[in-house]
């Protein structure tokens, strides 16, 4: 019997060997594969059980994780309500994550590779791992001023520091309260989410960077003027014909200036005057002379067609392809299929303000370790140099004229020279206009570049203009910046 017992022992050892192997395979070698399986709710629970980092404006936490007694361990709490929602986004248990919460999830959740040693020390010390905190470049007073200036209007404001690319304010209205989406009651989250999606006001749409793109209207003339001057084909004083109406080639369409008359007196008009009075016909002629490829070249230098990450992903702005002459002339004053984000237009003004250098826009000032020591501090990065310093200066001069003695008069401030350009974009027969302002101030030493968009004609249908609705909003934001 003894030899048989030995063999039975070996048999049992083999059986247990299989168990040692199977558990090792599962708990060591298949771990990653099992953790990412969408049916594995533990992965979700674990992501909640790390104390997610805070988001700070100045030294105030606008988003933080507050301990709770439920399985999620922490309740994400948004102190700014809807004010910062276009930047922070939301963090839900079952409807995904958006905004900065999504873009910097690895850092906030402590999963970034740079936080590897924090993870190890959390393991050894037995403390729950904590995510990094994010300090924003946004200024609370400017953000609030921009929000207040928009009031009940539906639109967006983007304010950028031209020499660094730091975003001082990024507002989209109407907004939503991320706290209502962060609740741990999954049915309540779903109901709220569906309600927000169904709402005609579009509160979840981030109009500043990722909404439906807008017709830029006359603010696009800055890009065409930049192309005209910087390519060396024209100067401020170059002139084009000045009719009161113009029939487009191979088309029955006739275009007019906003006044319905010619662009000031005379048979010809300078680019400077055309920009100051924001005339359509001269820019249609300039665009036709420059050609699609030259304008596209400059549009792309300003960021058109590129995915900009601030680090939230902005929708690329569009300069259309393969236009015929009529379409090229329409697009040259910001109609046809030109589509932009407010961020893109703020970048155009920012480059002009910064002597032709475009800095990459961002909302992140620094990434802070759990004890709030800075681990990564934002350094200004040049995005491109779309135009020469002299072109920038010339455009700046024209934009100052536009505010002091032209179509953007409502942006003027006492004692400060403001450079600006308005836009009143048509959206089709009978549709309300999209109202624009973009510019910078003070003109001689710019500290802020700004873009304002107001949807639906600011509630005024086709009677509101960029100057009457958008320019005053910009003025209030510029005031807030200058009073800092």
């Amino acid at each position, binding site marked *: *019997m003894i030899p048989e017992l030995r063999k039975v022992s070996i048999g049992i050892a083999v059986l*247990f060997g299989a168990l040692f192997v199977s558990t090792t395979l599962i708990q060591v070698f298949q771990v990653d594969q099992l953790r990412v399986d969408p049916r594995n709710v533990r992965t979700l629970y674990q992501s909640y059980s790390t104390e997610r980092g805070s988001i700070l404006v100045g030294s105030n936490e606008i988003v933080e994780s507050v301990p709770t007694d439920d399985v999620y361990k922490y309740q994400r709490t948004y102190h700014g309500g809807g004010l910062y929602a276009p930047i922070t986004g939301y963090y839900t248990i079952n409807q995904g994550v958006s905004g900065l919460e999504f873009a910097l999830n690895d850092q906030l959740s402590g999963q970034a590779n740079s936080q590897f040693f924090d993870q190890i020390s959390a393991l050894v010390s037995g403390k729950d791992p904590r995510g990094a905190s994010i300090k924003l470049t946004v200024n609370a007073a400017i953000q609030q001023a921009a929000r207040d200036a928009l009031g009940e209007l539906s639109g967006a404001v983007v304010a950028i520091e031209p020499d660094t690319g730091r975003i001082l304010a990024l507002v989209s209205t109407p907004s939503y309260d991320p706290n209502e989406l962060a609740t741990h009651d999954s049915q309540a989250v779903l109901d709220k989410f569906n309600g927000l999606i169904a709402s005609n006001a579009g509160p979840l749409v981030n109009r500043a960077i990722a909404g439906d793109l807008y017709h830029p209207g006359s603010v696009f003339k800055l890009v065409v003027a930049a192309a005209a001057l910087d390519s060396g084909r024209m100067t401020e004083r170059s002139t084009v014909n000045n009719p009161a109406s113009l029939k487009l080639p191979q088309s029955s369409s006739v275009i007019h200036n906003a006044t319905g008359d010619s662009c000031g007196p005379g048979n010809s008009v300078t680019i400077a005057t055309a920009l100051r009075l924001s005339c359509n016909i001269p820019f249609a002629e300039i665009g036709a002379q420059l050609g699609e490829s030259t304008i596209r070249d400059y549009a792309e230098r300003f960021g058109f067609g590129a995915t900009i990450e601030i680090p939230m992903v902005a929708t690329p702005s569009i300069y259309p392809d393969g236009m015929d002459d009529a379409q090229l002339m329409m697009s040259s004053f910001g109609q046809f299929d030109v589509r932009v984000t407010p961020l893109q237009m703020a970048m155009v003004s920012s480059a002009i303000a910064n002597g032709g250098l475009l800095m990459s826009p961002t909302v992140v000032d620094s990434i802070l370790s759990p004890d709030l020591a800075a681990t990564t501090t934002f350094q200004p990065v040049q995005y491109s140099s779309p135009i020469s310093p002299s072109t920038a200066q010339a455009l700046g001069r024209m934009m100052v004229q536009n505010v002091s003695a032209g179509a953007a008069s409502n942006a003027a401030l006492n004692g400060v020279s403001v450079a600006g350009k308005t836009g009143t974009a048509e959206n089709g027969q009978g549709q309300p206009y999209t109202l624009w302002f973009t510019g910078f101030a003070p003109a001689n030493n710019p500290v802020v570049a700004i873009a304002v968009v107001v949807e639906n004609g600011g509630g005024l249908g086709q009677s509101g203009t960029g100057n009457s609705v958008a320019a005053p909003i910009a003025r209030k934001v510029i005031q807030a910046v200058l009073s800092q």
Partner: protein
Amino acid sequence: MSLLNNSTPATITEQLMLRLKVPTKLRNLEATLIVFAMAVTSAALALVDLGATGQLNPPIIGLSLGLGVIVLAMHVAQRFVARDADPLILPIVTLLNGLGIAMIHRLDLSAGLSGWQANASRQMVWTAIATVVAIVVIVVVRNHRVLQRYRYVWMLTGVVLLVLPLVPFIGVTINGARLWVNLGFVSFQPGEIAKIALALFFAGYLVTARDSLSVMGKKAFGVRWPRTKDLGPILVVWAVAMLVLIFQRDLGTSLLYFGLFLVLMYVATGRAIWFVVGGGLFGLGALIASQFLTYVHGRFAAWLDSFNQVNYEAVGGSYQLVQGLFGFASGGIIGTGLGAGHPGIVPLAESDYIMASLGEELGLVGVFAILALYLLFIARGIRIGVNGSDDFGRLLAIGLTFVIALQVFIVVGGVTRVIPVTGLTTPFLAAGGSSLVANWIIVALLLRLSDTVRHQREEVTGQ
């Protein structure tokens, strides 16, 4: 009786006092190890409370003390009636049982169960009942050879217990397997007790039948095959195993009984050919069953293609298995820590899937430690078999040990996808009264056998 065999005449009371004053080295070792096992268990219970609730709650003191008192009662009983019993078995089982209670308590906390609703409270009561039964067994059964005499009683008992779940009105189907009996006031798995009765019967029967079964017949395909007239017993046991598979719908139970018989047959006759014959028969039966019985087919599909969404969503499909695997993975090498994971996500986390729960919170390290405890237990059992004084004792020790080993393999192999999932429970760890009582009876019988082994050696060598 051994108590009265002492040369010095004395009253029974004096004898008792003497024994208490002069405990053997073995029992002192056992006591020390039990204290260690209790310390580990208490620490585990405390960690569960701290991990899951952040504080120590009153029930855990009751659970710690309760287990300590119960096991010490068993220990004291051995000092009187089994002084030379193996000193490792009781501490190992105490630790396994204690870890089980700690994990069940942990799952109670996450499910919000307390008082008598809590599975841990009931597990503690069942542990007490099981230990009392074990004490009764070790006190009453002073000589294991007596058990051999009643082998046909064991057979009858085993068969009745096996059939019991199939009886209308009292048989209950849980998770597709008809392994349970509900008598209104108590429900249990008779199959757990049946495995002991069958081990006793197989051992008793094979001691007498081994000579005949060892004789081989004609040679074919290069090996000698059993004689046709000797095929009767294996065919009967195979038929019973197949009936269990078909009517009770549980591959694991079927495999357990049949595997037990095959191993004992091999050990008794020394003929490996029985493995070939038996393995072939069982494999054939399982193959046919998997083709024609939808539930067996479903179990195989859930095993082979667990992550397939169809199998995952199927009734009785791989949902539980896959969630258990997620639990194991979440534990990784060192585990989430007691009270810090989410083992409650897996259905039946406290019984069938307790290894997944332990794997999640104690990690691979904990799983290895638990498997090592089982291996140590099995090694002691085989050692008792090797040192056995008589063939019945040897076969019984091996049978009882192997039943534990095979059951651990079937259950842990099931939750880790080595074999299809079955309805068996992890010995000593899993929540469940019948399983605890049965396994503690096995402990009592092994202790009795080990005591006899050493006792007889002492008598022979005159120590």
